[in-house]
């Protein structure tokens, strides 16, 4: 039995004791089929109900003609019916006292005036009821810690993880997930669609309290809650990093420039201010968002700006050093004790300096010894190692045994796309692998920014 939370909490939205799927289907390929299938194959532990007036069973589970016929107090009802039918269905859910409706139908304000009118009808229905709604135009929620997948597309097996994603777009709970779940572990993915009722900030506020979630990533096209977002995000970032990708950054605002200030500060400047003010780490692209999410969820934060780079190539050491200084980090200055130790490890024809260039003779044992030695050096706060793609497999064992003293390590494997099975093994050890070292350094600079600017380091450590 799951703990019952106060009515005003969204806990039950993420940990429902039962789910009814309105529009559950037996027809392979239909969205109502996919959603129901996902709940079954991911082994959802709560009670599962199908609502479909046309059939007796859906995928082997007894079907009800109407949500009102179910003799149970319903925590979550997922709706997959045509948009124009949703207001009627939602009214029924409200009468039934359903706690949360997940409206996965599409064809609302995103398509124009007709859809907008349907949304207004839904808002009216919800207004006088205790029922809350996610969506419409969303792909439901995933909570791997509750074996729950409500996605519109069939989702393969997911490992349990500490990353929470809040996304305005459904693709984050299906299309993108297959690939990213190879190297990342998700806890919660909440798609929020048109945010007619429950918005991005409500989700964020809840995830801030969920102990299974340690890092939160958000894909946002707007922020419905306005100033409240800043207050909530600032509070959450005291305990958990938040990474946000804002879509529509180049959209021209409707503001007319009457004053000097208005002519200078644009829409994008406002969002930059919002994120800075609330200590949210801003991602530059969807790839950047996942690159950041992975590192924050798997590795500790660097507590200082000093970076040690270990490379088998001088050139990559040089370019990653450039990125290091461009992004506000610096190369660590090794202590004389560290230098003495290193001179025992590295070949005599190589000078001991940072970046440590072990040349093409670099061996896994050398790399491990350099790291274990320098992890004890106070000026080293983070590591980047650059590995030769075709030799990746040789390093897996040694990397799994490193003593990093709580310092982050990111790996760069140029052309890593061609050795993905080996990359996945390193990722499973908890070390994010990027292609170019400049990306790894960029990620560390953001992690360091967060360490310096949020209250996280003061409160959570």
């Amino acid at each position, binding site marked *: 039995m799951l703990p019952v939370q106060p009515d005003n909490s969204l806990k039950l939205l993420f940990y429902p004791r039962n789910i009814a799927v309105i529009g559950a289907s037996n027809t392979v390929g239909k969205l109502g089929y996919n959603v129901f299938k996902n709940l079954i194959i991911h082994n959802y532990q709560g009670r599962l109900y199908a609502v479909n007036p046309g059939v007796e069973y859906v995928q082997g589970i007894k079907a009800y003609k109407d949500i009102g016929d179910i003799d149970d107090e319903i925590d979550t009802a997922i709706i997959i019916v045509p948009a124009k039918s949703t207001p009627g269905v939602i009214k029924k859910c409200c009468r039934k006292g359903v706690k949360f409706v997940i409206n996965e139908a599409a064809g609302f304000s995103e398509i124009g005036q007709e859809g907008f009118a349907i949304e207004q009808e839904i808002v009216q229905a919800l207004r006088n009821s205790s029922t809350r709604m996610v969506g419409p135009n969303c792909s439901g929620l995933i909570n791997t810690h509750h074996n729950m997948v409500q996605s519109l597309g069939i989702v393969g097996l997911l490992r349990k993880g500490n990353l929470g994603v809040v996304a305005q777009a459904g693709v984050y709970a299906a299309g993108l997930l297959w690939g990213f779940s190879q190297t990342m572990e998700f806890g919660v993915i909440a798609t929020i669609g048109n945010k007619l009722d429950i918005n991005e900030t409500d989700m964020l506020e809840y995830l801030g309290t969920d102990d299974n979630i340690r890092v939160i990533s958000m894909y946002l096209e*707007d*922020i*419905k809650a*306005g*100033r409240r977002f*800043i207050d909530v995000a600032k509070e959450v970032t005291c305990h958990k990093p938040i990474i946000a990708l804002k879509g529509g950054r180049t959209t021209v605002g*409707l*503001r007319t420039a*009457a*004053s*000097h*200030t*208005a002519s*200078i*500060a644009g*829409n994008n*400047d*406002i969002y*930059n*201010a*919002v994120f*800075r*003010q609330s200590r949210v780490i801003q991602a530059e692209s969807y790839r950047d968002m996942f690159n950041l999410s992975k590192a924050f969820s798997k590795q500790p934060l660097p507590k200082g700006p000093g970076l040690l780079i270990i490379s088998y190539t001088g050139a990559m050491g040089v370019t990653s050093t450039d990125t290091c200084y461009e992004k506000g980090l610096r190369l660590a200055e090794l202590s004389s004790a560290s230098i003495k130790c290193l001179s025992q490890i590295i070949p005599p024809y190589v000078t001991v300096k940072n970046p440590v260039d072990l040349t093409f003779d670099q061996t896994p044992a050398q790399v491990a010894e350099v790291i274990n030695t320098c992890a004890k050096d106070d000026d080293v706060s983070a590591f980047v190692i650059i590995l030769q793609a075709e030799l990746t497999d040789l390093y897996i064992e040694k990397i799994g045994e490193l003593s990093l003293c709580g310092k982050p390590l990111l790996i760069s494997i140029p052309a890593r796309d061609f050795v993905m099975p080996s990359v996945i093994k390193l990722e499973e050890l908890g070390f994010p692998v990027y292609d170019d070292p400049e990306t790894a350094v960029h990620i560390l600079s953001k992690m360091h920014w967060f360490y310096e600017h949020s209250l996280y380091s003061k409160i959570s450590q």
Partner: protein
Amino acid sequence: MTRTPNGSCQKPGKFLNEIESKQLLKQAGLTVTEPFLANSDSEAVAIACSLGYPVVLKVVSPDIIHKSDAGCVITRLTDPEGVRHAYNNMMSNLRQNYPEVAIDGISVQSQAPRGVEVIIGMIRDIQFGPAIMFGLGGVWVELLKDFSLRIAPLYEEDASEMIHELKGFKLLQGYRGQPAADTEIIEDWLLKVSELVMLNPSIKELDINPVFVYPNGAVAVDARVLLEDTPLIA
């Protein structure tokens, strides 16, 4: 019609003139060079004599936005003859070049000594509400876009970050032998402006431009406030 703090009436969605705008800022706790309205050249001279020289003459009109571009600001007037001459020149220039524009008169104010020039502004965002802007004056903010922005209400740390994150922050610290500017007073003003706009939803936009910052203290030299048609409560 909206009644403004100094009692004059203003059309909805209109700019307050400089005198009204500065009244509002003064009530919010900022230091301003206070302008006094003159309706004749001899009134201008009388005001100048009581203020002491040097003085500045500016046209007072809700319709003229870029006063200095329009030749409506005359600075560094050091004697009665200069004031009289400037007053009459400005009036004939206005009659000739801007016959349609509403003129409330010409204001006389003390000429503030030059300090580091900064700008403090506010706009209202549809989603987030009032956003406070801070930048270094002149080309810094206009051409180089060197400004910082935060959503009100501001906390002390926000105000401090707004100052420190400017690319030209070194200019405030005393560049090339100049004395350091009083960044504490800027912080204080940013917080006061934040409070002012939080308390007054009717202030739609605000420019305090320029502000002269000195080693000790600061003064708002020019200011413009755009109102919505809801009443002020300051």
